[in-house]
Protein backbone atom coordinates (compact mmCIF):
# COMPACT_ATOMS: atom_id res chain seq x y z
CA UNK A 1 0.00 0.00 0.00
CA UNK A 2 1.42 3.43 -0.90
CA UNK A 3 2.14 5.78 2.04
CA UNK A 4 -0.53 8.46 2.67
CA UNK A 5 -0.01 11.70 0.79
CA UNK A 6 1.85 14.29 2.96
CA UNK A 7 -0.63 16.66 4.59
CA UNK A 8 1.18 19.78 3.33
CA UNK A 9 0.88 18.54 -0.23
CA UNK A 10 -2.85 17.90 0.22
CA UNK A 11 -3.43 21.35 1.74
CA UNK A 12 -1.37 23.06 -0.94
CA UNK A 13 -3.38 21.41 -3.71
CA UNK A 14 -6.75 22.27 -2.18
CA UNK A 15 -5.86 25.82 -1.14
CA UNK A 16 -4.27 26.64 -4.48
CA UNK A 17 -7.30 25.29 -6.35
CA UNK A 18 -9.65 27.35 -4.16
CA UNK A 19 -7.55 30.50 -4.66
CA UNK A 20 -7.51 29.94 -8.43
CA UNK A 21 -11.30 29.64 -8.38
CA UNK A 22 -11.95 32.76 -6.26
CA UNK A 23 -9.35 34.83 -8.14
CA UNK A 24 -11.18 33.98 -11.37
CA UNK A 25 -14.15 36.13 -10.28
CA UNK A 26 -13.19 39.84 -10.48
CA UNK A 27 -16.44 40.96 -8.82
CA UNK A 28 -15.63 38.85 -5.72
CA UNK A 29 -12.35 40.78 -5.45
CA UNK A 30 -14.15 44.12 -5.89
CA UNK A 31 -16.39 43.26 -2.91
CA UNK A 32 -13.45 41.86 -0.90
CA UNK A 33 -15.04 38.40 -0.57
CA UNK A 34 -12.74 35.59 0.60
CA UNK A 35 -13.29 31.91 1.47
CA UNK A 36 -12.18 29.82 4.45
CA UNK A 37 -11.85 26.08 3.92
CA UNK A 38 -12.18 23.20 6.36
CA UNK A 39 -11.83 19.99 4.37
CA UNK A 40 -14.32 20.47 1.56
CA UNK A 41 -16.50 22.88 3.58
CA UNK A 42 -16.33 26.51 2.49
CA UNK A 43 -17.35 29.64 4.36
CA UNK A 44 -17.60 32.87 2.44
CA UNK A 45 -16.32 35.93 4.32
CA UNK A 46 -17.35 39.49 3.50
CA UNK A 47 -15.12 41.88 5.47
CA UNK A 48 -16.84 45.15 6.31
CA UNK A 49 -16.00 48.13 4.12
CA UNK A 50 -17.58 51.63 4.07
CA UNK A 51 -18.40 51.32 0.36
CA UNK A 52 -20.73 48.36 1.08
CA UNK A 53 -23.23 50.57 2.90
CA UNK A 54 -26.67 51.13 1.37
CA UNK A 55 -28.40 53.10 4.09
CA UNK A 56 -25.96 55.50 5.78
CA UNK A 57 -28.54 56.60 8.36
CA UNK A 58 -28.93 53.20 10.09
CA UNK A 59 -26.20 52.34 8.82
CA UNK A 60 -26.91 49.09 6.94
CA UNK A 61 -25.28 47.02 4.20
CA UNK A 62 -26.78 47.59 0.72
CA UNK A 63 -29.28 44.89 -0.31
CA UNK A 64 -27.31 44.49 -3.52
CA UNK A 65 -24.14 43.74 -1.55
CA UNK A 66 -26.00 41.02 0.37
CA UNK A 67 -27.45 39.53 -2.84
CA UNK A 68 -24.01 39.65 -4.46
CA UNK A 69 -22.32 37.98 -1.48
CA UNK A 70 -24.92 35.18 -1.50
CA UNK A 71 -24.67 34.66 -5.27
CA UNK A 72 -20.86 34.65 -5.28
CA UNK A 73 -20.91 32.10 -2.41
CA UNK A 74 -23.40 29.90 -4.29
CA UNK A 75 -21.34 29.93 -7.49
CA UNK A 76 -18.04 29.26 -5.69
CA UNK A 77 -19.58 26.38 -3.67
CA UNK A 78 -21.13 24.82 -6.77
CA UNK A 79 -17.90 25.08 -8.76
CA UNK A 80 -15.84 23.88 -5.79
CA UNK A 81 -18.05 20.79 -5.37
CA UNK A 82 -17.51 20.05 -9.06
CA UNK A 83 -13.73 20.59 -8.87
CA UNK A 84 -13.21 18.73 -5.60
CA UNK A 85 -13.93 15.30 -6.97
CA UNK A 86 -11.81 15.82 -10.07
CA UNK A 87 -8.98 17.29 -8.02
CA UNK A 88 -8.93 14.52 -5.40
CA UNK A 89 -9.15 11.75 -7.99
CA UNK A 90 -6.22 13.28 -9.87
CA UNK A 91 -8.23 13.84 -13.07
CA UNK A 92 -7.68 17.58 -12.59
CA UNK A 93 -4.25 18.97 -11.71
CA UNK A 94 -3.17 22.44 -10.55
CA UNK A 95 -1.19 22.67 -13.78
CA UNK A 96 -4.21 22.14 -15.98
CA UNK A 97 -6.23 24.51 -13.76
CA UNK A 98 -3.62 27.23 -14.31
CA UNK A 99 -3.58 26.71 -18.07
CA UNK A 100 -7.27 26.35 -18.80
CA UNK A 101 -9.76 29.05 -17.84
CA UNK A 102 -12.35 27.85 -15.34
CA UNK A 103 -15.82 27.40 -16.70
CA UNK A 104 -18.32 28.71 -14.17
CA UNK A 105 -22.03 27.89 -13.73
CA UNK A 106 -24.44 30.52 -15.06
CA UNK A 107 -27.24 31.84 -12.86
CA UNK A 108 -30.75 31.08 -14.16
CA UNK A 109 -32.60 32.72 -11.29
CA UNK A 110 -31.82 33.89 -7.77
CA UNK A 111 -34.24 34.73 -4.96
CA UNK A 112 -33.07 36.57 -1.86
CA UNK A 113 -34.88 36.83 1.49
CA UNK A 114 -33.73 39.82 3.49
CA UNK A 115 -34.36 38.62 7.04
CA UNK A 116 -32.61 41.30 9.05
CA UNK A 117 -30.72 44.52 8.51
CA UNK A 118 -27.13 43.88 7.43
CA UNK A 119 -25.03 45.44 10.19
CA UNK A 120 -21.84 47.39 9.47
CA UNK A 121 -19.55 44.48 10.30
CA UNK A 122 -18.20 41.28 8.70
CA UNK A 123 -20.60 38.77 7.17
CA UNK A 124 -20.31 35.02 6.64
CA UNK A 125 -22.11 32.68 4.25
CA UNK A 126 -22.38 28.98 3.54
CA UNK A 127 -24.03 27.35 0.56
CA UNK A 128 -25.57 23.90 0.21
CA UNK A 129 -25.96 22.24 -3.17
CA UNK A 130 -29.38 20.61 -2.94
CA UNK A 131 -29.31 19.18 -6.41
CA UNK A 132 -26.56 19.05 -8.97
CA UNK A 133 -27.36 17.36 -12.24
CA UNK A 134 -25.44 17.31 -15.47
CA UNK A 135 -27.20 20.44 -16.69
CA UNK A 136 -29.05 22.11 -13.79
CA UNK A 137 -28.27 22.74 -10.14
CA UNK A 138 -30.23 24.12 -7.19
CA UNK A 139 -28.31 25.85 -4.39
CA UNK A 140 -29.39 27.32 -1.05
CA UNK A 141 -27.25 29.91 0.75
CA UNK A 142 -27.40 31.28 4.28
CA UNK A 143 -25.64 34.38 5.59
CA UNK A 144 -25.09 35.57 9.14
CA UNK A 145 -23.02 38.09 11.05
CA UNK A 146 -22.47 37.82 14.80
CA UNK A 147 -24.58 34.73 15.50
CA UNK A 148 -24.66 31.66 13.27
CA UNK A 149 -28.27 30.95 14.32
CA UNK A 150 -29.52 34.47 13.45
CA UNK A 151 -29.42 34.63 9.65
CA UNK A 152 -29.60 38.09 8.13
CA UNK A 153 -30.27 36.76 4.63
CA UNK A 154 -30.86 33.55 2.73
CA UNK A 155 -31.26 32.76 -0.94
CA UNK A 156 -32.09 29.98 -3.37
CA UNK A 157 -30.74 29.95 -6.89
CA UNK A 158 -30.82 27.75 -9.97
CA UNK A 159 -27.80 27.41 -12.17
CA UNK A 160 -26.90 26.10 -15.61
CA UNK A 161 -23.84 23.89 -15.29
CA UNK A 162 -20.89 24.34 -17.65
CA UNK A 163 -20.44 21.44 -20.03
CA UNK A 164 -17.24 19.65 -19.04
CA UNK A 165 -14.75 18.61 -21.70
CA UNK A 166 -13.61 15.54 -19.80
CA UNK A 167 -14.72 13.11 -17.10
Amino acid at each position, binding site marked *: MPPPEPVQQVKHRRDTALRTLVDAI*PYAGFLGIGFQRHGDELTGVLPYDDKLIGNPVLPALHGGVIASFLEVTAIVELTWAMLWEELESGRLTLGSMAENPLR*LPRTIDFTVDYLRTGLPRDGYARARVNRSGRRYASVHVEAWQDNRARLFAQATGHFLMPQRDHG
Partner: protein
Amino acid sequence: MSDPTPRSFINALPFANALGMVLEHVGDGRARISMDWDPRFVGDPTTGVIHGGAVSALMDTCGGAAVMSCPGALTTATIDLRIDYMRAATPGQRITAEAHCYHITRNVAFVRATAHDADAENPVATATGAFTFTRKEDR
Protein backbone atom coordinates in the same frame (compact mmCIF):
# COMPACT_ATOMS: atom_id res chain seq x y z
CA MET B 1 -42.31 64.59 -12.22
CA SER B 2 -39.12 64.16 -10.26
CA ASP B 3 -39.05 64.45 -6.51
CA PRO B 4 -35.91 65.50 -4.60
CA THR B 5 -36.32 62.73 -2.03
CA PRO B 6 -35.55 59.73 -4.32
CA ARG B 7 -32.73 61.66 -5.98
CA SER B 8 -30.97 62.29 -2.68
CA PHE B 9 -31.89 58.69 -1.80
CA ILE B 10 -29.55 57.26 -4.47
CA ASN B 11 -26.77 59.85 -4.06
CA ALA B 12 -26.62 59.00 -0.37
CA LEU B 13 -26.00 55.27 -1.01
CA PRO B 14 -22.25 54.52 -0.88
CA PHE B 15 -22.61 51.18 -2.67
CA ALA B 16 -24.70 52.72 -5.49
CA ASN B 17 -21.87 55.22 -5.94
CA ALA B 18 -19.25 52.44 -5.82
CA LEU B 19 -20.99 50.77 -8.78
CA GLY B 20 -21.29 54.12 -10.58
CA MET B 21 -25.10 54.11 -10.70
CA VAL B 22 -26.80 57.11 -12.26
CA LEU B 23 -30.44 57.98 -11.57
CA GLU B 24 -31.95 58.89 -14.92
CA HIS B 25 -35.58 59.23 -14.01
CA VAL B 26 -37.76 58.88 -10.96
CA GLY B 27 -41.36 59.76 -10.14
CA ASP B 28 -44.84 58.39 -9.63
CA GLY B 29 -43.69 54.93 -8.58
CA ARG B 30 -41.27 54.50 -11.47
CA ALA B 31 -37.49 54.73 -11.61
CA ARG B 32 -34.73 54.27 -14.19
CA ILE B 33 -31.12 53.79 -13.07
CA SER B 34 -28.12 52.84 -15.20
CA MET B 35 -24.52 51.80 -14.69
CA ASP B 36 -21.48 51.35 -16.93
CA TRP B 37 -19.82 48.04 -17.68
CA ASP B 38 -16.61 47.84 -15.64
CA PRO B 39 -13.95 45.08 -15.60
CA ARG B 40 -14.12 45.06 -11.77
CA PHE B 41 -17.78 43.98 -11.91
CA VAL B 42 -17.17 40.96 -14.18
CA GLY B 43 -18.36 37.58 -12.90
CA ASP B 44 -16.73 35.35 -15.51
CA PRO B 45 -13.53 36.62 -17.18
CA THR B 46 -13.78 34.04 -19.98
CA THR B 47 -16.88 35.87 -21.21
CA GLY B 48 -16.44 39.36 -19.69
CA VAL B 49 -20.06 39.26 -18.55
CA ILE B 50 -21.06 41.36 -15.52
CA HIS B 51 -21.74 39.32 -12.37
CA GLY B 52 -25.40 38.67 -11.59
CA GLY B 53 -24.90 40.24 -8.17
CA ALA B 54 -24.05 43.61 -9.73
CA VAL B 55 -27.21 43.45 -11.87
CA SER B 56 -29.11 42.48 -8.72
CA ALA B 57 -27.72 45.52 -6.87
CA LEU B 58 -28.85 47.75 -9.75
CA MET B 59 -32.37 46.23 -9.76
CA ASP B 60 -32.64 46.44 -5.95
CA THR B 61 -31.61 50.11 -5.91
CA CYS B 62 -33.97 50.89 -8.78
CA GLY B 63 -36.84 49.08 -7.00
CA GLY B 64 -36.15 51.03 -3.81
CA ALA B 65 -36.10 54.33 -5.74
CA ALA B 66 -39.43 53.46 -7.39
CA VAL B 67 -40.96 52.77 -3.97
CA MET B 68 -39.58 56.03 -2.53
CA SER B 69 -41.16 57.96 -5.40
CA CYS B 70 -44.66 56.81 -4.40
CA PRO B 71 -46.71 59.52 -2.70
CA GLY B 72 -46.19 59.63 1.06
CA ALA B 73 -43.18 57.30 1.14
CA LEU B 74 -40.93 57.77 4.14
CA THR B 75 -38.65 54.71 4.26
CA THR B 76 -38.31 51.38 2.47
CA ALA B 77 -36.26 48.20 2.69
CA THR B 78 -36.21 45.10 0.51
CA ILE B 79 -38.14 42.12 1.91
CA ASP B 80 -37.39 39.80 -0.98
CA LEU B 81 -36.18 40.04 -4.55
CA ARG B 82 -36.24 37.40 -7.26
CA ILE B 83 -34.17 37.89 -10.39
CA ASP B 84 -34.47 35.88 -13.60
CA TYR B 85 -31.41 36.11 -15.81
CA MET B 86 -32.65 35.79 -19.37
CA ARG B 87 -29.40 36.32 -21.25
CA ALA B 88 -25.84 37.48 -20.67
CA ALA B 89 -25.41 41.25 -20.75
CA THR B 90 -23.08 42.21 -23.60
CA PRO B 91 -19.63 43.15 -22.22
CA GLY B 92 -18.78 46.83 -22.59
CA GLN B 93 -22.39 47.98 -22.77
CA ARG B 94 -24.17 50.15 -20.21
CA ILE B 95 -26.93 48.40 -18.22
CA THR B 96 -30.19 50.20 -17.53
CA ALA B 97 -32.81 49.07 -15.02
CA GLU B 98 -36.41 50.23 -14.97
CA ALA B 99 -38.62 49.54 -11.95
CA HIS B 100 -42.32 50.05 -11.38
CA CYS B 101 -43.97 49.98 -7.99
CA TYR B 102 -47.34 48.66 -9.19
CA HIS B 103 -49.15 48.13 -5.89
CA ILE B 104 -48.91 49.45 -2.34
CA THR B 105 -50.69 48.25 0.77
CA ARG B 106 -50.44 49.89 4.18
CA ASN B 107 -47.04 48.30 4.87
CA VAL B 108 -45.84 46.64 1.67
CA ALA B 109 -44.85 47.84 -1.81
CA PHE B 110 -44.78 45.42 -4.77
CA VAL B 111 -42.26 46.04 -7.54
CA ARG B 112 -41.48 44.69 -11.00
CA ALA B 113 -38.25 45.58 -12.78
CA THR B 114 -36.36 44.83 -15.97
CA ALA B 115 -32.75 45.42 -16.99
CA HIS B 116 -31.37 45.75 -20.50
CA ASP B 117 -28.12 46.65 -22.27
CA ALA B 118 -27.88 48.50 -25.62
CA ASP B 119 -30.50 46.10 -27.01
CA ALA B 120 -33.51 47.50 -25.16
CA GLU B 121 -35.92 45.08 -26.86
CA ASN B 122 -34.36 42.01 -25.20
CA PRO B 123 -34.04 42.35 -21.42
CA VAL B 124 -31.01 40.74 -19.78
CA ALA B 125 -32.97 40.21 -16.55
CA THR B 126 -36.34 40.74 -14.91
CA ALA B 127 -37.09 41.01 -11.22
CA THR B 128 -40.03 40.96 -8.84
CA GLY B 129 -39.78 42.13 -5.27
CA ALA B 130 -41.63 43.07 -2.12
CA PHE B 131 -40.44 46.09 -0.14
CA THR B 132 -41.40 47.45 3.28
CA PHE B 133 -43.34 50.71 3.08
CA THR B 134 -43.71 53.33 5.79
CA ARG B 135 -45.71 56.49 5.23
CA LYS B 136 -44.96 59.98 6.41
CA GLU B 137 -48.37 60.32 8.10
CA ASP B 138 -47.70 57.18 10.16
CA ARG B 139 -45.00 58.98 12.08
